[in-house]
Structures are given as C-alpha cells and as structure tokens.
C-alpha cells in the first residue's frame, strides 16, 4: 500500500520532469496524453490504496521517505487517512478529468507541452499538501501549489495582465504564508515538533487557550490567503487570466480549498481556541456575502465564477469554523464537482466563442452548445441549492450546523441564507445572459460545440454534480462515518446539525431562498440585458473598489516609501554619510596643504613649535 501511495505521489512529478525537459519536442497531443495518464494512474493508485482505508482494513497509512529537516524532527512523510483519501481522490479525480479536457482546450497552443508539465506539477504539489503528515510537508505542498498557480496563471505571459495576475496571486498568497510561518514557529516553539500526530496528540493537554488562539489566527491568515478569503481574496478574480482549465482545477476545485482542508486538519487547535473558530466562521460568512454581492454585477463569465468561488469558499470556512468539518469538507467536494464543471463549461463557451468572455456579447448559446448548456445547467442547480443536486446537501448541512450552534451563530446563518439567495440569483443571471435570450455575438463569431475530449469530462462532472451529494445525506451520512475516524484520531469533536424537525424547516427555508433567487433573476434577465453600469451596480462591478484601494496603499504608497528609502535614505543618507567621511577627510587634507608654505622660515617655525612643545612636556615631567 505504501508503495502505491508513493507512486501516486511521484507519478505526476515524473510526468512534470519528463515534460519539462522533453515536452516541447513532443507533438500534440502526446504531452496531454502523458499528463492525463499520470493523473489518471495516480487516481487509480490512490483509489486502490484508499479502498484499503475505506474498507476499514486500516484506518491510516503512513509513508516515510527520508529525514528532511533533522533539527526540526521533520521527515518527508505522508499520512493517508480518510481525510487525505477523500482529498486525494477529489484532486486526482477532478484533476484527471480536467487534464483530459485540456487536451482539447489547449489545442494549438505554442507551449502545449509546457502547460501539461505545469499541470502535473500542480497535481504533485496538491497531493503533497493533502497527504503531508506534518506541518512542514504540508507547507511544502502549500508553497508548491502557489508556484504552480503562479506558473499557470501567467501561462500566457505575453499578456501583461496575465503576468501581473500571476505575480499578484503569488505575492498575496505569500502574505498569508507569513501567517502560516508564524503559526509553524509557534507550534514548534510549543511542542518541539511539527508532526501532526505529536502536535494534535499533545494539544488538548498542553495548549492554553491564548496560545491556541494565537496559533490558529495565524493559521487562518495563511488559509485566508490560499483560499481567497477576506481580506486576501483579491488575487483570485485576477487569476482568471490563466487558461480556463487552470481556473477550474486550481482556482475552483482544488488549490483554493487548501485553506479549508488545513482548518479541518488542524481542527483540534481551533477547538481549543473558540474565538478563532468564531473568527473563521465570521470571515467565511462575511466573505461569502461580500463576494456574492460582487458576483451579481460581473459581466465577465469567468469573473462571475471567480467571485462565486470566493463566496462558496466562505461557506466552507463557515462550516469548518463551526466545527462542522465533515460538512465543510463535504461542501469542498461537491463544490469541486460543480464549480469545476461550471468553469469547464465556461471554458467550453469561451472556446466556442473564440475567446470572448463578456456575457453581454453572448446569449442564445443553449441551442448551439447543447451539451455544454445541459451540463452547466446541472451545475447551476447544484450551486443554487436545489435538491437533490449535490450542492444542496452540503450547503444545507453547513447552514444547519451553524444554526444549531445558536447565539451569535444565528446571524451567520442568516448571512449564509441570504448569500444562498444571492448565489441563486447571480448564477441564474449568468445562465440567462449566456445561454438564454437572443444572440448578441460579435460579427464573425461562430459559436460551436466543443470536441468530445472536452465534452466527456463535462458529462462526468455533470453526473457527479447530480449524485455527488448523495454520499452524505441526513438519511445516510456515509461520508461522515468515513471521515469521523480521521478527526477522532486527532481528538476533534465534530459539531452536528440539530436533531428533530429543525433541519427540515431549515432545509425548506434554504430551498425557498434558492428558488426566490432563481425567480428574481429569471424575471430580470429572461428577455433582456438591463443596463447595469452605473450607481450601485458600478460599485459592485468594481468590487467595492477594494483592488483600487489596495493598489493605492501598497503599490503607490508602498512604492513611494520604497523609492524614498532607496533614493533618499540609502543613497543620500547612509551612503551620503559614508562618502561624506571620505569627502571630509579630503577637504581637511586640502585645507592642511597651505600650511606647507614653501618658505623655509615657516618650516623652521614648525620645528621650533615642535621643540617648544616637547620641552614643555618634559618640563611637566621634571621641572627646572
């Protein structure tokens, strides 16, 4: 089994290495085929190994490769417990589909081989992240997915916007990483180790609330960076500059959920720090609402989905913040299905529209792209929370748990509910603007359905979006039973939805919210595209001008400060002092030169002065 896990990890890495060196020389579609094969094989191997865990034969497997950082007791070692199994399967499963899809989508790109190399690198990184058995290996994966994300966002680096977006993503993520790093330092300082087993094992007994709060808030900062939560979400909308499969895989299905995974993984620490858990949930709720309102006013199809992703990630944060880790991870999984589907669908649309992303220039595509439309419609219902589609079950469970916590959590629940309404609204808006109504295409654009290699993954994901939710219904919580041992092993107490009739009521309320949203949007957008470019719409469209504010503060303000430091302080101040000493010495030397007058009699005076001086000294020693 251990070998299988090792292989599952290393296959994508091997794929990356091979393609990085030889990818450019292989003709299309071979790089894609190779990359898809490694991804698929990796999925199969993970599944076989996972079945062992799922089947209950062993609850967890650990693979240790070598000692990595001896002084920190860190080994390159991997943990395969139910939570990692689930994450691994989602990552490799969805990943394989998207790899396959990309074979068609990236057709004709001049750096075809490079793309698949990067995709495989991402897979390897993400697998490292979700299987690492200690914080350090987790952090390795954490950073490497950041690298892959950077490479893939700026894949079309000839576009200045793409290059800028990649850098922005990496830098903003790094801000979060500072938090993560500080958390790691605190953890090592407290426990003397970074291994999950030891840390989580000792935490309940050894960790005070204050310290736990400190650690978890720092972890949250890291998670907020990676999972695009307030206030570090700004990179994700820009990340849509990358090729659409990248958006689907990295910026919707997998990488951005790493924060959720991390909070769930470190659940015990958050349990010991109720304040932090509350902060997590609050950040999640706030982000969910905030991003949903922005999504309402976007015209770029991918930006709608990007803000939607941020919003959905907020849900997951709400869930894990409320200690509903299973619900959070469950939503992570269903979201991976339907959001990947939405992105791939959007990609298919963009592909068909020859690169057009503005929904105002679409419309009426349902007829031309039936498969795309059908699969996206499934995803639309799933995200809108309509049963029995996948999104309903997971979102509903989160909201139920949050409601069940009572007190202030009720407010969060209300926000979540309103966000559900908004979600349904903007998704419906997107569907109508894209597929419904009249065609508003530019001249010369001839939309067409995508090739089979792209449609098949859509269909598979469509199926998963329908049935994926059934894995964990209140009637048969299979996933919960499966995941529970993983949390129990780390002493986490899971929060559950309230018992009795309440869940039913809550479910109906949220279905109603979804339906209201759908209805409202249908009414507004069914037949026309209203003018939404002024007033509050404009404010929402520009994302409350947060980006501009950040730019003003950090890019303009910070830039000015840095320029001052470099030009004035460093060059004129410090170096000026250094050169000043040199110049002063030179000036003194030049001032002294005239003393050597050239007149022999003044020289004699100098000798005389010296003589008198020496005599005076000796007089003080003895006197006459």
């Amino acid at each position: 089994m251990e070998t299988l896990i090792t292989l599952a990890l290393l296959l994508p890495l091997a794929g990356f290495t091979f393609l990085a060196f030889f990818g450019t020389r292989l003709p299309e579609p071979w790089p894609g085929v190779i990359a898809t094969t490694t991804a698929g094989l990796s999925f199969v191997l993970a599944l076989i190994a996972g079945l062992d865990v799922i089947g209950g034969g062993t609850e967890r497997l650990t693979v240790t490769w070598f000692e990595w950082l001896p002084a920190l007791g860190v080994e390159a070692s991997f943990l395969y417990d139910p939570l990692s199994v689930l994450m691994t399967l989602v990552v490799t499963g969805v990943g394989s589909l998207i790899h396959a899809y990309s074979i068609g989508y990236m057709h004709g790109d001049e750096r075809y081989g490079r793309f698949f190399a990067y995709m495989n690198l991402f897979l390897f990184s993400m697998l490292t992240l979700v299987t690492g058995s200690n914080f350090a290996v987790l952090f390795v994966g954490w950073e490497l997915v950041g690298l892959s994300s950077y490479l893939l966002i700026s894949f079309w680096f000839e576009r200045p916007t793409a290059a800028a977006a990649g850098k922005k993503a990496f830098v903003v993520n790094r801000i979060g990483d500072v938090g993560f790093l500080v958390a790691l330092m605190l953890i090592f300082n407290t426990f003397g180790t970074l291994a999950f087993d030891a840390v989580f094992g000792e935490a309940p007994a050894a960790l005070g609330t204050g310290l736990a709060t400190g650690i978890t808030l720092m972890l949250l900062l890291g998670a907020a960076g990676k999972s695009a939560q307030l206030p570090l979400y700004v990179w994700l909308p820009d990340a849509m500059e990358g090729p659409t499969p990248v958006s689907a895989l990295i910026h919707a299905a997998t990488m951005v959920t790493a924060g959720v995974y991390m909070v769930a993984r470190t659940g015990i620490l958050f349990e010991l720090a109720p304040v932090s858990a509350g902060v997590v949930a609050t950040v999640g709720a706030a982000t969910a609402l905030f991003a949903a309102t922005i999504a309402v006013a976007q015209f770029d199809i991918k930006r709608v989905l990007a803000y939607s992703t941020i919003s959905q990630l907020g849900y997951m944060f709400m869930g894990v913040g409320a200690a509903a880790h299973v619900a959070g991870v469950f939503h992570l999984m269903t979201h991976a299905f339907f959001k990947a589907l939405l992105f791939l669908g959007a990609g298919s649309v963009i592909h068909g529209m020859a690169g057009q992303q503005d929904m105002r220039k679409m419309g009426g595509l349902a007829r031309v792209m039936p498969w795309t439309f059908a699969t996206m419609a499934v995803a639309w219902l799933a995200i809108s929370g309509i049963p029995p589609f996948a999104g309903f079950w997971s979102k509903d469970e989160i909201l139920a748990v949050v409601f069940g916590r009572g007190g202030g959590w009720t407010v969060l629940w209300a926000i979540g509910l309103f966000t559900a309404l908004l979600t349904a609204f903007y998704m419906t808006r997107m569907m109508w603007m894209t597929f419904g109504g009249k065609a508003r295409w530019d001249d010369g654009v001839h939309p067409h359905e995508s090739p089979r290699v792209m449609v098949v993954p859509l269909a598979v994901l469509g199926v998963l979006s329908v049935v994926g939710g059934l894995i964990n219904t209140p009637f048969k919580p299979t996933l919960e039973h499966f995941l529970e041992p993983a949390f129990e092993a780390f002493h986490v107490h899971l929060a559950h939805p309230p018992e009795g009739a309440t869940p039913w009521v809550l479910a109906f309320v949220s279905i109603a919210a979804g339906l209201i949203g759908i209805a409202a949007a249908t009414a507004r957008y069914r037949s026309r595209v209203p003018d939404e470019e002024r007033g509050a719409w404009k404010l929402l469209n520009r994302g409350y001008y947060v980006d501009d504010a950040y730019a003003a503060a950090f890019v303009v303000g910070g830039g000015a400060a840095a320029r001052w430091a470099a030009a004035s302080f460093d060059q004129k101040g410090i170096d000026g002092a250094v050169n000043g000493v040199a110049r002063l010495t030179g000036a003194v030397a030049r001032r002294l030169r005239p003393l050597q007058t050239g007149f022999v009699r003044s020289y004699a005076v100098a000798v005389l002065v010296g003589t008198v001086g020496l005599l005076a000294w000796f007089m003080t020693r003895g006197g006459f």
Partner: protein
Amino acid sequence: MDFPVLTTLIVLPMAAGVAVLLLPRRRPELALPVAIAASLLPLGASLWLLVRFETGVAGFQFVEHVNWYEPWGISYHLGVDGISLLLVVLTAFLFPISLLASTAIKDRVHLYAASMLFLEAGIIGVFLSLDLIVFFVFWEVMLVPMYFIIGVWGGGRRVYAAVKFFLFTAFGSALMLAAILSLAFVARDQLGAPTFDFVQLLGVDLTRTAQFWLFAAFGLSFAIKVPLFPLHTWLPDAHVEAPTAGSVILAGVLLKMGTYGLLRFNLTLFPEATVDLMPVMATLAVIGIVYGAVVAIVQTDIKRLVAYSSVSHLGFVVLGIFALTAQGLQGGVIQMINHGLTTGALFLLVGMIYERRHTREISQFGGLGSVMPIFAGAFLFTAFASVGLPGLNGFVGEFYVLVGSFLSLPVWAVVAATGVVLAAVYLLWAYQRMFTGPVTLEENRGLSDLNAREIVILAPIAALILFLGIYPKPALDRIEPSVDAILQRIEQTTDYRVPDFGSGAVVDLVGEHGE
C-alpha cells in the same frame, strides 16, 4: 603527519595563479583555459576533504599546526570543522564556474585569471585558518585581487566601487587587528605566552567589558563584510561594477566570510558579549532583511536589485546566528551555502544577459520569456530558490532560521518572516518586467538563448539547489556537531540557556526567553 590537504587547498590556486602569470604573454587565449583546469584541482581536493570528513564530530579535522613565529605567538594553524567544510567546498565549487563564465574578459586575461586564483586561495585560507593572525592575513590579502577584479575589469564606476570596497573593508579590519593584538596580550597574562591560536584563546577568561569591546571590534569588521545594515552601502556599488565572476564570488563566498567570522570568533571567544548584544545584532539583521528587500523592490538595475537582495538574505544568516539556538545556527550556516548558490546563479544569469545586451536596466528588457525560454526558465528557477520556495535550497535555511530564532527572539522572527513576502515582490516583479509581456524593444527580438557553455555553467548549481532543497540532511549532519559545540560553550560560560520548547510553555511575545 598526514597529507596536508588543507595547505594544498590554499597553495594549489596560489601556485596556479603564479603559473598563469608566467604563461607567454603572446598567447592570452591560453590563460583562461589553464586557469579553469587549474581551478578544478582545488575542487577535487575539497571533494576529497568532503568525503574523508568525519561526520558527527564537532572538533577540527585535518589539523595542521606549525609555529610561524613563536615569540609573537603566531602559528600556522589550519583545521576544518562542519562550519567551514561546506564553505570551503562552496568556494572551490564556485571558482571554476565563475572562471568559465569569464569568457567576456578580453583585456589582460593573464592578470585576471591570476587574480581570480589568488582570490580563491585567500578565501579558502580565511575559512581554514585557526590562528587569528593567519586568519587576518588571508582576510586582508584577499582584498587585493578583488580590488583588481572590480577596478580593472569592472563597469563605468569601477574605480569608485573598488576603492570603496577596499577602504570600507579595511576600516573594519583595522579595528579587528587592534582587538586581535589586545587579545593575545590578555592570553599572555593568563597562559604565560602570547598566542593567537584560536583553540588556545578559547581558554582565556575575559571580563565582560573586555568582551564587549573585543566583540565590537571583531563584529564591526565582520558586519561590514556581511554586510549588516547600515554598513551595506559598499555592496551595491561593488556588485554592480564588478564583472560577472567578481559578483558571483563576492556574493557567493566573500560575504560569507563576515558571517563565518561572527560565528567562528565572536560567538566562541566572547560568549558573554554575544549574549548581551544578541538583541542588537538581531535587530540590525532584521532591519537588514526588511530594508534590503524594500530597497531592492525599486531598483532599476537588475544587478543592483540582486545586490540588495543579498543584504536581505544575509540578514537571515545573521539572525540565525544570533538566535543562539541549534536550529538558528544550523539555518544560518546552511543559508550561507544556499545564498552562495542562488545569488551566485542569479549574478551569472545577469551576466549572461549583460553580455548579450550590454545593459542591466530592467526597463531595457521585456518579453524575454518568448525570445529566450531556457534563460527565462533558469532565471525563474533561481529566483524561486532565492524567494525560499520549499523544495529548493533557500527554504531550508530560511525556515531553520525563522523557527530557530522564534525560540529565543520571537518578535524578531515574526518581523523577519515578512521578508518572505518582500522577496517575492522584488524578484517576481523584476521577472515580470524583464521576461513577460510582449517584446517591446527591437534589440531584444534577436537575442540568442543560452548556449551549451552557459548551460554547463548553470547546471551544476541548479542541481545543487535542488539537492539541498530536497535532501539537506548530509549537509546539516556535518554542520550540527560543530554548531552544538558553540552553543554548549555559550551555555557553559554564561548564564544563557538555549530556550527549550516545552509543552504548554506560554510564548512571551515580549521577547524574554524563559529562564
């Protein structure tokens, strides 16, 4: 006596330098190949040393000890331990590479190649000397070849830069010499005979005040070399004006002489002062980390940018050293190696583009990624190593330093961690401006990608970057005992205790470590 491998390491490049000078002047094309071939000999010797080095031993190995002039207490005493071992290997490794990267030098090649070889001998001597005077001799004498390399084969303001480099460093060493001499007389009063022998000096008791002043004198000299804020302004000038190989050596090994000195001498000879001044040094280090990075962001000259990044990275090394924890010290040492590799590689890359375009202004580039894909890839790889991406070498050192310094100096460590963000900003922004976007200037359109020679130059460094990132254990295992010995000595001679992590220990973020 065993084969004097350490002396061989010093003498080989020196003899090679003389040999190069004696080559017929009518055949300048011979000088560089001969020098490259000759520089492989010390590399071989250093690898032999690496293989024969006994891992897990704290003390000095391969020791050579001959009296130089007994009445003054000077002895030719060489030895290598886990700290110096890797630095020696790094030095011997970087020289053939830098020489290979020097084909652009056409003027007085003999002198150039000889200067490089003399420089190598001097640097290796610094790392191997266990007698303070011999150490000082190498420390100071290596300024001369470096001065020539910058001053003769450098850029437009080369004379200014060379003289500044020389005087700045010499100023520091002047006070160090006074301190060394004073130390020898204290030793005479206690041991009966004056001695400059490092090992013997460890047995000398110094008052707290004496330690303070001696620490200050040694420390100033080393801090200038590191360079520690605010003594860093010679560095950008020297780097920018130096020819490529000069920059590589300057950043790769020369700066390490400063941090090595702090570690080898300040920490062991003046433990009480070390403990007293720990916050001061750490503060300067942290200021350097942040300040160097901030200033690097807005540089318009790529070489200057990399130079300021060195200020930032070396800050990590100093922070690690003055964290006075096992992790911090190990991190500091490994970070020296890592910085040598990554920044060396960055300077090589900058040199390669400079040879093609004769400019280093970032604004003169743009869109190179599509013109020179291999070059772009190599640059990005190195940049990420420098940024501290896990899996590449830069991370290991930074992580050790951060975790290690957090144990004793939590606030400093947290501030230092922000350097991680800034590093990403300056390097990736520079990459963005140089390599991405459309090709804006006609001159850049026809640039040729890296040739075989250049790939041969970069490949070994890249391999080491990867190896040390993934499996640093062999290196760390060799460092560990020596570093532990230093800490033990500090604990034995002062009331400082290396802060231990403990279950439930509340971290006092005010910065007072638990006693």
